């Protein structure tokens, strides 16, 4: 008749398969693999971050080196973006950060460009040079104004 051991074994396999699928989705696909594993916390302030979101990637030369951890408003009505970065990377103090879009329809992320100084940013310091997000409407507005001013 129904062998209980066989059935228990099959259920065990099923549970393993199910948990395996969950693990795959979480780790491999979802990329839960540890950012902020002892990273250095830095921050930068922007005039306009557009729709940059927390957990957005931070890239340097196209390589993901960190993640945005928090977005707040500071006292002078600018956006302060906190992020953690891989501690093995030494970022010169005159590096810049800009907010760019991944592709035409993509999400915003932070692009770092390394500076040339010999001194490096320490834990908790600010990136001085920033470039705000390019907002499409403003660009179009500017373009239209320029066209009007420029009689052909």
């Amino acid at each position, binding site marked *: 008749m129904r062998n*209980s051991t066989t059935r228990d074994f099959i259920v065990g396999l099923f549970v393993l398969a199910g948990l395996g699928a*969950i693990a795959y*989705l979480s780790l491999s696909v*979802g990329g839960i693999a540890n950012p902020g594993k002892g990273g250095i916390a830095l921050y930068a302030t922007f005039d306009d971050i557009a729709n940059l979101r927390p957990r957005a990637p931070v890239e340097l030369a196209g390589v993901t080196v960190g993640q945005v951890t928090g977005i707040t408003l500071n006292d002078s009505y600018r956006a302060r973006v906190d992020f953690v970065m891989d501690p093995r990377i030494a970022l010169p103090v005159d590096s810049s950060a800009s907010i760019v879009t991944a592709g035409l*329809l993509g999400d915003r992320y932070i692009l770092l460009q390394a500076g040339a100084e010999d001194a490096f940013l320490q834990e908790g310091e600010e990136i001085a040079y920033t470039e705000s997000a390019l907002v499409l409407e403003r660009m179009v507005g500017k373009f239209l104004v320029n066209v009007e001013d420029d009689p052909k």
Partner: protein
Amino acid sequence: MIEAVAFVGRKALAFVEHLGRIALFTTRCVATALRPPFRFHRLVEELYKLGVLSLVIITVSGVAVGMVLALQGYNTLVRFGSEEALGAVVGLSLVRELGPVLTALLTTGRAGSATAAEIGTMVATQQLDGLRMMSVDPMDYVVRPKAMAMTLVMPMLGALFTTAAIFGAYLVGVALMGIDGGTYMTSLEDAIDFRNDVAGSLLKTLLFGGIVGLVATYRGYTCAPTSEGVSSATTSTVVIASVTVLIADYFFTALWGV
């Protein structure tokens, strides 16, 4: 005229009474779940009946849905020249919505109706009364293992469905449409975030599992002890569970996105 209004009133009262009964049933079920004996053996038996036996429909449907998604997605994206985003499109729609919801609906149809029918038949053949006379609480012996198994099984089935679908989409996108496999996987992995997407997806499946488990056991438990009663319990389980899952999906998604 008065008749019509009275009718509405009666229906409303009946509905509220019904909700009350469901709430009481749920409380009893949860209370039983927290008390020994825990009857792991029964739980394993139900995991087999609800989970393992649903594997075929879940994996086959998963692959099929993935394939269709890839087909549709590709045809649309190609118009914007964004076909490398196929992985992201497929992955996000599956993980966030299609995976949990479709798994829940498929499982309702297969395992949910089977559960309601089984319990209903036990009512009709006096097996539940038999258990009571042997000093065994049917809530403890029959309802609890089934409801718990359904709740636990749903995240696993959901993950298997989504994985199968990702694979199905891969087949169509890469093997058929010629997208680069690496691009597909990278696009997929980049777009999906654990906290926003996968975690929410898993919680959703847990919630749906609980809903289906409770509806199916409730309808079976309270069904009339006739063959029409059992049949009505089965069909109403599928209808009620499906609608509740879809409504819960909306509320969960709205709240989770906060």
